């Protein structure tokens, strides 16, 4: 696990009942209260080593409506949607959908994470088509 970023956010009822939480629930279709913070997801995640905020903590931040703290972390962007977390969660909670929901909230504001022109031309020629298509689906709106 990467050294986790220490954060001291201000939790408020307004944030918990705010738009961000509602939208994450709606887009992911998940009941964020199901998570009991066991950390199984973080243990299984192959990208956790590079994450400043672990998957487990992202769920906690998400249900507290701490949008800015999530936005300042790279967690959802280095997630590879491998579904290791989803399949290992003892509560059957689908984290991959929560990660997607958080990504979508940024992408739908017309803010892309990857631009096609930033991929070096030699890579555009070599990358398998499934990489290009899936990359653009996950990283562009």
């Amino acid at each position: 696990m990467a050294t986790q970023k220490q954060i001291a956010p201000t939790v408020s009822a307004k944030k918990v009942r705010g738009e961000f939480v509602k939208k994450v629930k709606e887009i992911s279709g998940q009941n964020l209260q199901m998570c009991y913070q066991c950390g199984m997801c973080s243990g299984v995640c192959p990208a956790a080593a590079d994450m400043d905020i672990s998957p487990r903590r992202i769920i906690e931040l998400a249900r507290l409506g701490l949008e800015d703290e999530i936005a300042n972390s790279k967690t959802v962007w280095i997630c590879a949607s491998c579904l290791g977390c989803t399949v290992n969660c003892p509560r059957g909670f689908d984290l991959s959908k929560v990660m997607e929901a958080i990504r979508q909230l940024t992408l739908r504001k017309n803010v892309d994470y990857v631009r096609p022109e930033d991929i070096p031309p030699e890579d555009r020629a070599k990358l398998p088509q499934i990489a290009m298509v899936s990359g653009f689906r996950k990283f562009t709106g």
Partner: protein
Amino acid sequence: MNLAYYPGCTLKTKARNLEEPALAAMESLGFKLEEMDRWNCCGAVYSLAEDDLIRQAAPVRNLVRAKKQGKDELVTLCAFCLNTLKRANLLMKQEVEKRNTLNSFLDEGVDYAGEVKVTHLLEVLRDRVGWGLLSQKVRLHLRGLKLAPYYGCTLLRPREVAIDNVQDPIILHSFLEALGANPVGFPESTTCCGSYQIVRGPSTIVEYARRILRSASNSEAEGLVLTCPLCDYNLGQGQKELLRLGNTFKEMPLFYFTQLLALALGLTADVCHFELNYGNPESLLREKGLLSRVESLSTSGGPK
């Protein structure tokens, strides 16, 4: 026996070495993989957003067209496509409101509710051919080939679309055993290769590759057996990047399961297109004396 086949975009160019041996091998087993008409890109990944229907249009349209063409099953070779098509299929089966919206939007003239079954070639080999029959058809036993079956994510996750046990799959192991090879299990055989992160550059997947390769080589595997063109690319690029960063290790040749199938059934190596593989798998095969036996099989009038 004819099987309706969905190739996907990658198999026609980058992953010819996955498709061509498969078509030839299945033909020799009495199965014709017949490409379906008018297929489009399936979208590669399943959209995980509940309210996103537009990205479901791509995979669902293929399934509707398969139904219109009178197919009740669609076989795929690409693990990525399998996952996307199978999940989209489940959506059409289980979520009525979304099904109605998609059917109306697609306007293909036929309503679809998940009637077409989506299968992977490995399932066909296990369930339709059977490992016993397959090993009887083997003309070149891949003896001495210690290969690590690498499953990756898409054939096993989520549970609803898994083609085998999610935590302890054996389908590739059994496949390799049927061909006479030694499957070498290793702890990271179902860990992700990094998937689409590769579009952000090779540095993004180097740790994923390192984890998998180190685990496979610690288990004394001499090569990896893959089912997915993206895993193939990432594990190949990963090795290149690790070498570039100054790591020293014995390179791990990468095989597609279909190439091993074709060889074991006595087909010539040229249908396998090993020149497209990473890590020079031909030299490993030669080392085990397998390629020369393939050549002699073909001169003695074996199947081409």
